[in-house]
């Protein structure tokens, strides 16, 4: 958007139409020499110097356009950019996502549990505004993928690149919570939450989920636990990221509801279960609606003066006309 410091100066533009009329169309204008070249009422000598006339027309256009730019520049034009400034600190949200092979369970159609979890996380984050988000993945080990921050693009890229079984066969749920808590430690947010998405039991790692939950609770972190999938035998299909081999088979599914409930209770969070992609979506939107704080924002208006660019272009255009007519065409006046 463009604003003017002195919009009144734009009124000078009104002088242009009469000036253009006087310069090019007025019958009695000066700068012309009387010279007979017509046969009265019969014939007029019309030279066929079309190229010359086109070039001269271009020259005149550049003169007037240059003058217009200078007049606009004289009104003090600035480019205005508005930036939304958040006055309040958002909620820090860490996602802890199970990357164990069981997440390949095909009961979450059309893809699998892992894919729909990723999709739902992405749409959750998209719906947030100015809340730092982070990502921890866990399998046999737990690894920080994205530290909590506002760089959503980076978050999406990392989320997208997550693959099943990257972190080994296993489910170190406790480690996942611990890593997430550790990286939330330095956060200055008043509210910090962890959203844990898993479909299995904790079966790896040096820290058991309960003690990890106690650590989190002591840091003031709430944990929302989401149990994925139905109980029973489900088909399974995934590609080992290291060997590239495709595994297929049946799998006895079932998460440890008791542990998840306990974790939620310890940290003052909540446990949800999601039997289908649709249910998972609902679960995350309810977390979304619980974890909302009012945000105060204001608009920061930045102005960048652009008169200099306009003056330079205008000056070049006017000089172009001058040199074209006086130097190339050797105009008398």
């Amino acid at each position, binding site marked *: 958007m463009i604003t003017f410091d002195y919009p009144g100066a734009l009124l000078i533009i009104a002088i242009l139409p009469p000036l253009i009329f006087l310069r090019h169309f007025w019958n009695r204008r000066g700068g012309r020499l009387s010279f007979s070249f017509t046969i009265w009422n019969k014939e007029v000598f019309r030279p066929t110097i079309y190229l010359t006339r086109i070039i001269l027309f271009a020259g005149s256009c550049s003169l007037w356009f240059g003058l217009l730019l200078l007049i606009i520049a004289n009104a003090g034009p600035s480019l205005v950019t508005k930036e939304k400034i958040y006055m309040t600190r958002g909620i820090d949200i860490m996602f802890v996502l199970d990357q164990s092979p069981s997440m390949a369970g095909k009961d979450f159609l059309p893809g699998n549990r892992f894919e729909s979890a990723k999709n739902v996380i992405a749409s959750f984050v998209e719906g947030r505004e100015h809340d730092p988000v982070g990502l921890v993945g866990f399998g046999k080990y737990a690894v920080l993928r994205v530290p909590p921050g506002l760089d959503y693009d980076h978050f999406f890229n990392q989320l997208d690149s997550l693959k099943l079984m990257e972190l080994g066969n296993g489910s170190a749920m406790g480690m996942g919570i611990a890593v997430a808590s550790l990286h939330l430690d330095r956060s200055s947010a008043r509210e910090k939450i962890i959203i844990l998405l898993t479909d299995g039991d904790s079966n790896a790692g040096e820290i058991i989920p309960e003690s990890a939950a106690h650590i989190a609770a002591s840091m003031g972190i709430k944990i929302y636990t989401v149990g994925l999938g139905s109980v029973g035998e489900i088909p399974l299909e995934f590609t080992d990221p290291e060997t590239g081999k495709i595994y297929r088979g049946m799998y006895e599914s079932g998460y440890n509801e008791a542990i998840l409930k306990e974790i939620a209770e310890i940290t003052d969070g909540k446990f949800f279960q999601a039997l289908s992609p649709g249910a998972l979506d609902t679960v995350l939107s309810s977390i979304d609606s619980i974890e909302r704080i009012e945000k105060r924002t204001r608009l920061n208006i930045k102005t960048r003066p652009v008169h200099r660019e306009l003056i330079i272009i205008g000056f070049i255009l*006017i000089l172009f006309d001058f040199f074209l007519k006086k130097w190339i065409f050797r105009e008398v006046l």
Partner: protein
Amino acid sequence: MAERPDSFYLFLILIPVVYISLKRYVRGKRDLNAIGGKWRSRLLMDVFFVKWFFSSLLFVLFSVSVILALVEFSGSGRKMVEPSSGVDIVFSVDISRSMTASDISPSRLQRSGDLISALVENLTGERFGLTVFKGEGMKIIPITEDSLAVSSVLPYLSPDMFTSSGSSLEAGITTGINSFTQGEERKRILIIFTDGESLSGTLFSLSENIVENDITVIFIGTGTVDGIELLTAGGAPVLDKQGEIVISRLNRLLLQGLAAQDSIYYLDISDSAVLSDVLEVIDRQMESLVVRDLRESKYRIFLSAAVLFIILYIVVRIFPWKNTF
């Protein structure tokens, strides 16, 4: 005070303008006599001289005014207070092969890592980001309060992080600038660790980009000017195409040249005070109330004059003086 003293060079344009104007007078007289006729020669010459004189004078005055407007003289100006709520610091580390040179022990890269972790330790509560660059740039840690994430990555900085040849400072700066997030009034500081060697990419739009985004840039020169031979992973010196041993040196002059601008600094990593120097620069940015001196350009006075002169220049031509010319 002239904000853009370079524009004074534009006065050179007046040479061709005046030359052409004078030539027009001589030729114009001749042409008018040839077409207008000798019988009214005196009248034509009088009118032509007056019109030529004023239009040339007005065009010269116009040019002078525009150039003076472009010089942007500024007055005393007003002070502006800018609120700020902390600093975002992005580290951009050169991980090209030459950064493994050990002219500063243990290696240029490791010393950079050490300095970064020292800074992160010293600046609790601020936000950090980490990017690395070779021929291209890559974001490792996005801006975060989680300083642990930054310091935990530092030991793994190496030329093998990704494959891309060359060392493009431009890529490093661009990736660094792009790491900053919108939405808060925080000071932005980009700290670039590089030896300035075998740089590719252009720095044409660098300074503009920095100014536009209101970013303070600190270049940290790693290495020594004397340099050292580069070693391959096996410990043998790297040879160039002619079979000469490649010596890697710190290109300090280039980096100091880049730091000629107000908001760009250059510091040497081998300097023992480098940590405190960097902290001092950051401290200065962190002062919550930054008073900025906004000098207002007086270009409008000259530009108004220029517009007036060019309009009069056109009017002089239009004016049908004595019904003659």
